[in-house]
């Protein structure tokens, strides 16, 4: 266990240079964006003088180096700056929007795992059967249907035609007040607060967008599960287990699946990362107040502080996710380890 702790510690340390790199790169890249925020925020009718006033007010009249050190200094005191676009501190924005995106992503990923893993396993156990074909159809559909299309289609079907889903208006109907902030996940927070009504309302809102994301995430997970299971089932240790007369449940569950889980877990890490990106379109369609739409708007407006804050928080999140996956892999599989 000690070596494992040391490994985790070393992984953490490895993240430090990447974070420093990210700070520098995100700063430089936002400055390299075309478009002039001073001109943008001065408004359509502004003249040269008022643009210059805005430039000074935003601190953009200083040199890049000076701006960079001011930025880093602020970072250390936990100040990410103020988003010009929304007029609120970037930290506040991220704190309210990141949980929204994470809640959606986790739910979507959960749905995807619940469907994709059993599907992949079954397809691998009975290759060529109808379930294998169904798996193939779902995978192809999931990959080829753009998320905004799936989203609009689901809205059309379940909201517009059938009237089963609530109006696609974000995380909660306006008539409900958000539950007390604990985790930032409305479903969890409302449960913690013991407010069943709000929980149901929040759950209803999240079903369709999560399903949209889930359908999208399903494909790589199902494919990976199927391939990994096929691999495991064809391996020597499964043959040995079967030859020794172990029940097929034990063979599948303990031997084959436990081994197949490793590549699936790695895939999950990747899927999670790109789901956070794919969120943007789903957020747009369902008016979800997440981090994706915030970032897009910030980019359009050359809102430096907001873009930097977004890139930084995303990078930290990726580092965390990778770290978590690596740790999980080490815990599951004794073969994985830096010391071999």
């Amino acid at each position, binding site marked *: 266990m000690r070596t494992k702790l040391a490994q985790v510690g070393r992984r953490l340390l490895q993240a430090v240079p990447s974070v420093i790199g990210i700070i520098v790169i995100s700063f430089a890249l936002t400055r390299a964006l*075309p*478009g*002039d925020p001073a*001109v*943008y*925020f*001065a*408004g*359509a*009718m*502004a*003249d040269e*003088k*008022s643009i210059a*006033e*805005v430039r000074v*007010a*935003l601190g953009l009249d200083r040199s890049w180096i000076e701006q960079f050190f001011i930025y880093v200094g602020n970072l250390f005191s936990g100040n990410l700056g103020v988003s*010009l*676009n*929304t*007029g*609120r*501190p970037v930290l*506040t*924005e991220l704190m309210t*929007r990141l949980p929204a995106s994470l809640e959606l992503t986790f739910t979507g990923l959960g749905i995807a795992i619940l469907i994709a893993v059993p599907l992949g396993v079954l397809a691998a156990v009975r290759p060529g059967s109808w379930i294998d074909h169904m798996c193939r159809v779902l995978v192809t559909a999931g990959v080829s249907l753009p998320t*905004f299309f799936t989203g*609009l289609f689901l*809205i*059309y079907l379940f*909201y*517009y035609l059938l*009237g089963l889903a*609530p*109006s*696609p*208006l*974000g*995380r909660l*109907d*306006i*008539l*409900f*007040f958000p539950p007390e902030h604990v985790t930032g996940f409305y479903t969890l927070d409302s449960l913690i607060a013991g407010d069943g009504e709000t929980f149901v*309302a929040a759950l209803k809102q999240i079903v369709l967008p999560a399903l949209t994301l889930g359908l999208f995430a399903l494909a790589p997970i199902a494919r990976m599960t199927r391939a990994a299971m096929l691999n495991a089932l064809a391996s020597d240790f499964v043959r040995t287990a079967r030859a020794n007369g172990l029940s097929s449940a034990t063979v599948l569950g303990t031997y084959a699946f436990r081994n197949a889980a490793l590549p699936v877990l790695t895939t999950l890490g990747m899927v999670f990362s790109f789901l956070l990106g794919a969120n943007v379109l789903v*957020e*747009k*369609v*369902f*008016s979800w*107040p997440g981090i994706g*739409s*915030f970032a897009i708007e910030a980019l*359009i*407006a*050359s809102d430096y502080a907001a873009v930097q804050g977004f890139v930084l928080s995303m990078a930290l999140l990726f580092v965390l996710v990778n770290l978590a996956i690596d740790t999980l892999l080490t815990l599951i599989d004794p073969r994985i380890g830096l010391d071999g």
Partner: protein
Amino acid sequence: MRRRDFLKTAGIAAGASVLPFLRYLPAHAASREGTLVVVTGDGINSLDLHRKGTNRPSYQVTVNIYDRLVRFGVKTLPDGSLSYDSTKIEPEVAESWSISEDGMSLTFKISPKAKFWDGTQITAEDVKWSFDRAVSLGGFPGVQMKAGSMSDPSQFVAVDAMTFRIDLPHASKLALPDLAVPVPFIINSKVAKEHATEADPWATEYLHQTPAGSGPFKLTRWDPGQQFLYERNDAWELGPKPALERVIVREVPSAATRRALLEKGDADFYMDVPPKDAKELMEGGKLKVSGAPIDNCLHVLGLNVNFAPFDNKLVRQAIAYAVPYAEILQASAYGRGKPMFGGAEAEPSTAEWPQPFPYATDLEKAKSLLTEAGFPDGFETTLSYNLGLADWQEPTALLIQEALGKIGISVTLDKIPGANWRTAALVEKRLPMHLENFGGWLNYPDYYFFWAYQDGHLFNSSNYRNDEIEALVVETLHMDVADPKYDDNVKRMIAIAFDEVPRIPLYQPYLDAAMQPSVDGYVAWFHRQLGLLGISKVQA
């Protein structure tokens, strides 16, 4: 954590009055009388228009929660739609006003009925503080005030508690209407000053999230990026009492979702509907679409005279004859535009603006003009458009590209992201051929010419310069419309614009809003925002 405090107080205020019975009406609050559910594509980013970086959608808040000295009246259009009336100025905070003999000072009597939300009387001091703020903070508000010849705090005088005077450097017809635009709104200066600091003397941080006004509505809740909530100010007496008790404005970024919400009946009102949806909803017959041509606004094809061969008038005229106006009106405006082509007169007989230009699609004529200009085989150029306005600019650009191809001009399309558009088109003015959509808030032709035809001015993206126009605009801009020379001057400007065509008007766009049949009283405003004042909602 100012925001949290704000939300807390706002939340309590809203909660106390809204929650008890709204809880029993989930999802179908839209069907409730007196509550209007509005869906909009663009979110607001501030409650203070004077603040730097406040976006256009936020003007809506200022329009509804603050009062101004005066406001524009409302008129009924021939098709039954309502529109603001740029010629009628009505009292608001000022119960009456007088203009001095020489036109250089305006004196306003403040109405004793004008009360802030906290119950205190609006005084001349408040007005002065608010106006000083508008001209001192810089940026867009300063520019707009300047259009009314107001740029220096010393021009604003609080004569006594109930009398306010504006001194102008010269008489101008633009001064009074400029007081009815959203910018010179009146703030409760006592409240604001309490929150002003050394570094922030105009309390921009405070007013950004905590309005202090007197208007017919109060903003009781704002969840940035999601929604905001208006509630009626029952004590407001500066006009007919608003019929709506409560207005919920939800941000819905996807236009398809907005339309679905409206058609499904979960939303009552959809502002700024894209022309395609407006047309289809209108034909669907279940919903009401109300719109009016936007005053003093034109969608134009700009030809930059700094780039050859657009410096040649004949080339510009040739292009004006090649543009497929009717197709553009159908394909990109879906008929929701007023034609600006095929005018009968080469010399305008009225000073009406905008009016149709004397060009129509005529490829033969275009070709012969091009030959005459020395380009019988055409030339190559680029047509730039703004991706932020792709819904009308993209189809328009494609149609123009195709049509110009027929007379030998080969056009490459150049898409410019919204954030860069202004710099490229208006500041650096470096786009040879481009689409542009300026509209003036103050509805005077000379005001349009001032911004769009005068050399060096922002919306003159064509780099056009004509000495006669320069002189005419300077002479006419502040001239009273009753002046005998006014009509002639304007007609002369229009005649030059007809002949020289640095800007080829495509059509005058509509501002469309779609709503449930139960919603009545929507007015199309020059500021293109939703004014809640006259709107009512009655269940049939």
